[in-house]
């Protein structure tokens, strides 16, 4: 959402454009919103809504306020003069959500907000409010690994595994990812100070990136090759081999990218195709 107006549009400008009543949050009208999400379908709001948005909706129900809160929206604007019930206001008040009630219908309200564009001195703030509407089915998780913390080694791979199982990734693939993540995690615990692990999952690929701060690997090619020569068939049959971390990763991941700067750290990216 980085556009010319990273701060977005102040709620008071929307409120005056719509001549909307401020139902909750009169003191918060200078807060900016960075996108507008116009929908009555709360499952979508929750899945695709961007944090910092304003929700325009005709669904006058507590679910609207709860979903907006969970998706980290800043405001809920009820259209067509719908006035939220006491329970909704109370919830919004508690959670710091601004609630407006506008008389316009959804199209008029959208058009007016988009039109604020023309009155702004700066170029096109409305562009900011229109982030590309990509309902991308991607999910990301981040984990931290502490180097030298042998007691917690394996925690990240256990979490990664649990996530993949819940999503319903095929068990054999889950295991490959878990083994690679475990090996990567062990490398961090043994050789680095700390690392950030990222899991990115979409419908065609699983990516695990382990970015560590540590001594680094002097010869990446050698590190990768060493395993190839020493790993026995038997260890391969087992799916792992003690001290065979990298080759084991290479065997279980579809794409491995290892880059390292001596004295700084190592970045290990492992990718797995989802069939």
């Amino acid at each position, binding site marked *: 959402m980085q556009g010319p107006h990273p701060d977005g549009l102040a709620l008071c400008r929307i409120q005056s454009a719509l001549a909307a009543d401020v139902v909750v949050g009169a003191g918060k009208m200078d807060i900016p919103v960075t996108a507008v999400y116009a929908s009555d379908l709360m499952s979508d709001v929750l899945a695709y809504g961007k944090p910092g948005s304003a929700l325009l909706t005709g669904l006058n129900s507590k679910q609207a306020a709860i979903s907006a809160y969970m998706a980290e929206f800043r405001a809920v604007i009820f259209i067509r003069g719908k006035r939220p019930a006491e329970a909704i206001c109370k919830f919004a008040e508690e959670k710091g959500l601004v609630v407006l009630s506008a008389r316009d219908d959804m*199209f008029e309200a*959208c058009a007016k907000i988009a039109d604020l564009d023309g009155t702004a001195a700066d170029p096109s703030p409305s562009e900011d409010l229109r982030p590309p509407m990509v309902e991308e089915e991607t999910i990301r998780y981040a984990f931290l690994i502490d180097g030298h913390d042998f007691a917690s080694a394996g925690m990240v791979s256990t979490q990664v595994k649990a996530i993949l199982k819940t999503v319903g990734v095929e068990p054999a693939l889950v295991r490959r990812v878990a083994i690679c993540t475990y090996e990567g995690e062990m490398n961090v615990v043994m050789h680095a100070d700390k690392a950030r692990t990222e899991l990115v999952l979409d419908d065609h690929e699983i990516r695990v990136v382990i970015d560590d701060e540590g001594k680094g690997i002097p010869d990446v090619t050698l590190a990768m090759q060493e395993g190839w020569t020493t790993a026995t068939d038997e260890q391969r049959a087992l799916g792992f081999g003690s001290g065979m971390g990298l080759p084991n990763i290479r065997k279980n991941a579809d794409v491995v990218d290892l880059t390292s700067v001596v004295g700084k750290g190592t970045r290990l990216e492992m990718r797995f195709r989802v069939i």
Partner: protein
Amino acid sequence: MKLQDMISPLELKALTHVEDKEVEGIFISDMLSDVMSSAKAGDLWLTVQTHKNIVSAANLVDMAAIVVTHGKSVPKETVDLADRFHVAILSCDGSNFELSAKLHAIGFRPR
């Protein structure tokens, strides 16, 4: 404004046969109750709903067409039912808000 004149500037994709109708207003909602209460004949209905009962609602008040927004894919049974009752369904990748802004930008004003 004619429905046919909106298809290309708004990058709409027709999923059914589209009769050339006059679009008199824009109605955005994902609730059939709202259609019952507030939609007008001749409105273009923007929604993310794709269940086949949208055909039932759009037909009752004789809306100009249904535009399924947010890039939702529309099940075949909905498209089939729409064709049977001469209800036009189009789809687009943009959000309700984005499409509103575009409609406004191409000069559409409700009657």
